[in-house]
């Protein structure tokens, strides 16, 4: 159902709650690209958490602090680390993507993580690779724009 309220500061709220609970994660997808400076829009936050039960339990604590309503089955799914968990029972939408398309290893992705925005964000090259691998019409529309952004972003970092 359509939402009554929406806060654009959702990434900041996730980052604060996840930090308080020591969740190991990165922002990915278009929400990650937006934090890096990509001039696009999205409505949800996509995060790539490390897949293990302890990290899953920390995510549950963080989401409860953010006022997400989690039923016991959903909590089990998060602790198990189901590959894709989409939650819309809180103040904003969040996708927990434990196995993003086109990304083989959490540790490798983390070693290339971009923290220049003050947030843990998947490297722009990995965001693009993941979009390409997802292979949806919406990704085909976004890819040329993301690649143009990458060009500008990387030139700017060199300066």
């Amino acid at each position: 159902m359509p939402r009554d309220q929406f806060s654009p500061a959702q990434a900041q709220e996730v980052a604060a709650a996840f930090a308080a609970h020591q969740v190991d994660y990165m922002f990915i997808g278009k929400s990650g690209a937006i934090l890096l400076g990509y001039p696009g829009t999205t409505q949800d936050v996509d995060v790539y958490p490390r897949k293990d039960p302890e990290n899953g339990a920390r995510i549950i604590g963080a989401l409860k602090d953010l006022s997400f309503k989690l039923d016991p089955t959903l909590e089990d799914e998060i602790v198990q680390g189901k590959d894709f968990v989409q939650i819309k029972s809180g103040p904003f939408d969040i996708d927990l993507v434990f196995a993003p398309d086109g990304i083989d290893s959490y540790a490798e992705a983390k070693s290339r993580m971009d923290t220049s925005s003050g947030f843990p964000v998947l490297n722009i090259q990995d965001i693009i690779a993941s979009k390409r691998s997802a292979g949806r019409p919406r990704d085909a529309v976004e890819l040329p724009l993301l690649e143009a952004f990458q060009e500008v972003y990387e030139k700017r970092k060199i300066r």
Partner: protein
Amino acid sequence: MKDDDLEDFRQQCERNLQRSVADRMRYGFCYVYKPVLDDAPWRSFDSTAAYRKWCRENLPEYLGYGEPDALQKEILNAA
């Protein structure tokens, strides 16, 4: 997409990179109701492929989660 359109977009990227992260969030996160997708409190999938399949089979085509057409495939496959 024409190159001159991308040049405009590159300039837009330059301008957006000059914004604070708070402003990037203010302009970047906005709510648009998506039918079906937004109509359940949560859902989970054993694999990302299973999620993609669910999207293809259940979401309205105009949301862009379906099968890419020939031109879209060409863009997606151009590494």
